[in-house]
């Protein structure tokens, strides 16, 4: 775990950007940059963070920052990493850390091919997915990261279909299956765990992935003062287990001994409000069963007993 006094006092991500009040993306970004160990280059997928921090001619970035498109930030990182290596051979390059940031759309869905390719090729970079569980930048549409039952504008709470029918995709298992040295989940509400993981990921020689849960007040439908609290609820209900996979070995980082029922997490957010109608209440039981089974699965992978 990092200590406060060890963290960088630099603020390469400047305030004054146009992200919403209570937005977890600025929190996730600022914390990640606290883990910087030296010259760092950011590659950024299209998304809220990109549009709200760089409206030309303004920028919030005091370090090199590159946005190319939505689906390819890992491929862009590959090119930058390779170019720095090539320039070093020519004697004109510098050693830099390459940090890619994408939302769950740019990671779980449209970006997964480029990510998979970059992981398989073993480029030395860190990929952070700021997972707010939907396409928030275009106005709250479902993604592969959206949980079952959640309302989005493309999975509306209809009279027949109550929100998204499918469960969330297991991104970290997909990434770990590439045999990479480091993959982890994190949540902005547990800053120390998250920053420690980003630093660990940077120090890995090769690719590393972190999926950081980032509750979005607009998309999840909660008050903007509750962002951190919502992340805590996600973890304390075991909805979002916090673990890491280092060289194939799973480790549970935050054990939740006495979990709150997932209902507490669901009822705090407008995106699940339709599930509390009598005709859809059974969905909550289904979600609870999924949470229980998923927790058990993760515990087994971590070699932990009970739970």
């Amino acid at each position, binding site marked *: 775990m990092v200590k406060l006094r060890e963290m960088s006092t630099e603020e390469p991500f400047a305030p004054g950007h146009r992200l919403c009040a209570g937005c977890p993306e600025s929190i996730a970004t600022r914390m990640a940059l606290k883990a910087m160990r030296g010259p760092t280059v950011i590659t950024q997928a299209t998304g809220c963070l990109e549009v709200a921090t760089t409206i030309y001619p303004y920028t919030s970035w005091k370090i*090199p920052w590159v946005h190319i498109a939505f689906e390819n930030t890992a491929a862009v990182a*590959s090119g930058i990493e390779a170019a720095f290596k090539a320039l070093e051979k020519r004697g004109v390059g510098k050693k830099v850390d390459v940090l890619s940031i994408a939302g769950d759309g740019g990671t779980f869905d449209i970006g997964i091919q480029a990510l998979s390719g970059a992981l398989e090729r073993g480029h030395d970079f860190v990929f952070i997915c700021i997972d707010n569980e939907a396409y928030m930048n275009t106005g709250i549409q479902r993604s592969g990261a959206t949980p079952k039952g959640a309302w989005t504008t493309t999975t509306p709470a209809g009279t027949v279909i109550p929100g998204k029918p499918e469960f969330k995709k297991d991104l970290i298992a997909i990434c770990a299956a590439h045999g990479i040295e480091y993959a982890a989940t994190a949540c902005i509400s547990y800053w120390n765990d998250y920053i420690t993981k980003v630093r660990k990921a940077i120090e890995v020689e090769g690719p590393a992935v972190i999926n950081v849960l980032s509750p979005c007040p607009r998309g999840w439908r909660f008050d903007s003062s509750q962002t951190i609290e919502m992340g805590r609820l996600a973890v304390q209900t075991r909805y979002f287990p916090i673990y890491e996979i280092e060289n194939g070995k799973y480790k549970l980082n935050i054990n939740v001994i006495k979990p709150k029922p997932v209902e507490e997490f669901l009822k705090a957010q407008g995106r699940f409000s339709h599930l509390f109608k009598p005709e859809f209440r059974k969905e909550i039981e289904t979600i609870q069963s999924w949470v229980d089974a998923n927790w058990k699965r993760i515990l087994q992978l971590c070699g932990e007993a009970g739970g």
Partner: protein
Amino acid sequence: MKKVLGLTGNEAVALAAKQCDVDVVSAYPITPQTIMVEKFSEYVANGEVKTEFINVESEHSAMSACVGASLTGARVFTATASQGLALMHEMMYIASALRCPIVMGVANRALSAPINIHGDHSDMMGSRDCGWIQVYVENSQEAYDSVIQAFKIAEDPEVLLPITVNLDGFIISHCMEGVEVLEDDAVKKFLPERKTDFKIDPDKPLTIGPLCLPDFYFEFKRQQEEAMKNVPSKVKKVGIEFGRLTGRTYDVLHTYHVEDADAAIVCLGSTAGTARAIAEKMRKEGEKVGVVKVMLYRPFPAEEFRNAVKHLKALAVLDRACSPGAPAAPLGSDVKTALYEMEHKPKVFDVIYGLGGRDITPTDIEDIFNCVLQTAETGIIEQPVMFVGVRE
């Protein structure tokens, strides 16, 4: 002493890229370009180059990585064709708008459907508005020469635009010819290491690729147009310099017997060779025919083109691509647009030929010459767009 190697177009392109000492190659194999990638992989595997070779998982990622590498200040090469070029389409606009002087070999191939691996220009024509400089070559020698010149043109601070070197799939890409090659040192002298002030550099941080709304977007596009305007003079300058080195001078157009002709064929790529052979034969028979080979297709050298053909009575423009529903195919449209403001201009008709690798025979070319001669004589265009070599 001159060094001549037997090389296919693909091999010539790979060798030229190697001699240009590229820092990064990011590419994905596709017929008929594959050998460019395979040859380069051999150079890497045998330690003949210091290049970082990224074996990406798609053409989309190939171009994405090229853009990232180019923005870092590296000299970057890639290659593709057909579906691969179509998959890159989105990234090609970004490469040009972010002013990345990437050089790309394109072994032109038809686009699906139906799937077809043979040569036509549909692929590049589908991306012709993507802001890239586009050069078409006639044979392996031109492919080799053009790649070396391409880096010098693209990396010029007054240009900073990416460039495609187009060679007809199979007809050039797989045809072995004698290619006169330069020594490595001569290429190095002609093309020094890439230098750029605008790059990803932690000491001078830049925000690259920001959101740009109606208040500024237009100015970026306007600047791209300005950069394009600088290209023809740079192509000529580099072509002359290359000529001093090799005896092979390059220009934006190549004309053959056009000076005193009544009628001419206008075309791109390998077809120019066939057209010249037939023109030579018909000249001996007393017909005043010529050939205009367009070497620089984007930016279209309109002024040079007007000057070259202003005295002609008729032109047949050969298009190895079609633009369904348009008044003419791509090259035909450009020619007609270029000539429109002229008071006395040649009559122009468009000939669509050779799609999906359909052979264009000497007889076809002779028929087209006869047709364009008839138009020159009568002033009448029988068909504004005609198809040659297709079952009707």
